[in-house]
């Protein structure tokens, strides 16, 4: 039999790529969130953590490169799956009533694209200092990049805080379906691991939502001291 498609490009291969990269991205999101929550520990802690990452130098760039590759693979696979699935039903139903699927599951491409747009905006904001440039690049008393001041001053502007909250709500929907879906795609069948395909996705997505949204919200409400920002 002639092989028409390499296994990696088959339906299951593409889905598997999406599941693996999706879980890797989730891992990044969780670690990134834990790092950011140090904003509650004060300026000293957060700026020291930021400096630790900056000083990693080469390692940081390798990690960034890997993350970008994972992200690109995820998005490319998403478009591939979307294209295959569009082609699989050229004539739509006059009436199709979803019986069990969720809104989250049916809007994965949309929520994913909003998250992607947010990632670009987020990098332009805190990494490159293009957005809200006035608050970027200041130094703290120890001569380190004052990340704490930048974050607090940034989120005291409600349009910026709001855009972060909206993006996180969409990420919540993306993960609520995506995480459980990934474990099904990766072939988890053991009854003791069944929870991974059930509530787990929503719980993880909820943790990410609460953790990440708390930062712009508490800052906007003036609960995080500004100090000299």
């Amino acid at each position, binding site marked *: *039999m002639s*092989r028409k498609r390499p296994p990696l490009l088959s339906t299951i291969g593409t889905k598997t790529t999406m599941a693996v990269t999706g879980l890797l991205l989730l891992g990044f999101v969780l670690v990134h969130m834990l790092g950011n929550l140090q904003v509650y520990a004060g300026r000293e802690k957060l700026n020291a953590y930021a400096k630790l990452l900056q000083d990693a130098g080469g390692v940081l760039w390798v990690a960034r490169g890997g993350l970008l590759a994972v992200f690109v693979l995820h998005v490319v696979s998403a478009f591939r799956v979307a294209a295959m699935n569009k082609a699989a039903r050229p004539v739509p139903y006059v*009436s199709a009533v979803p019986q*069990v699927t969720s809104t989250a599951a049916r809007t994965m491409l949309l929520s994913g694209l909003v998250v992607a747009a947010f990632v670009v905006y987020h990098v332009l904001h805190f990494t490159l200092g293009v957005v809200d440039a006035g608050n970027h690049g200041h130094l703290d008393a120890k001569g380190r990049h004052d990340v704490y001041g930048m974050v607090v001053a940034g989120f005291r502007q409600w349009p910026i805080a709001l855009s972060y909250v909206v993006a996180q709500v969409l990420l919540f929907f993306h993960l609520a379906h995506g995480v459980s879906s990934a474990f*099904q795609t990766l072939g988890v069948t053991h009854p003791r691991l069944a929870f991974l395909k059930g509530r787990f996705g929503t719980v993880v997505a909820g943790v990410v939502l609460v953790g990440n949204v708390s930062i712009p919200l508490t800052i906007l409400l003036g609960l995080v001291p500004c100090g000299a920002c």
Partner: protein
Amino acid sequence: MNLTLHVWRQEGPGVPGRMERHEVAGVSPDMSFLEMMDLVNERLVREGKEPVAFEHDCREGICGCCSMVVNGAAHGPKKATTVCQLHMRTFKDGDTITVEPWRAAAFPVVRDLVVDRSALDRVIAAGGFVSVNTGSAPDGNAIPVPKEAADVSMDAAACIGCGACVAACPNASAMLFTAAKVAHLNRLPQGVPEAARRVRAMVEQMDAEGFGACTNHYECMEACPKEIPVRFIAEMNRAWTKASLSAESAAADKAGFG
């Protein structure tokens, strides 16, 4: 009961179709959905018009021929029920009901509600056979079959190949069907020697037929008249990945088998 039907009419493959309105009077709640369709057709024939073509055979929920999307749900609103076993008492007097064919690129419409589901047969055929010696009958119990394996295999074998999973899937994916057919043989000791080859060949055929990729909506399981669980899809995903990574598969590809 009096009903308003909106039925898909299409003269043949590849030509555009449209919904056609029919007022149906005198429907008994004890009729099956297909008997109600018979009523419509008898009138159309009396009026010298072309009856609505639909597929049916056993009318008792075991052959998998009947295939209609009723009010946006494959096989209609009732769980674990083929449309031939769906009774009109499920509906109310005065209801408006839409009736459409399975819609998938892999299931071209033959006429009206009849679609060509040969793609499913080709997926089964790609799976090949199990290796048994023909000739004299094998000794009873020569191959021990664990009870659990027999039960699970039987659950998978309950699939009647109706294609409702494809029809119900937002992606027109045939993963539930293919997974059931893979598990049916791979779960039994007799199917084990070809297990890796079987899952790869069947998935490859499934893709070649133009079915979509599963994104875990689980609409298939809800529509399945035999309630095949989506656990079989996870099982097939794992089996396919393992088979695709195995050294034996790589060697078979090189040698041109497989």
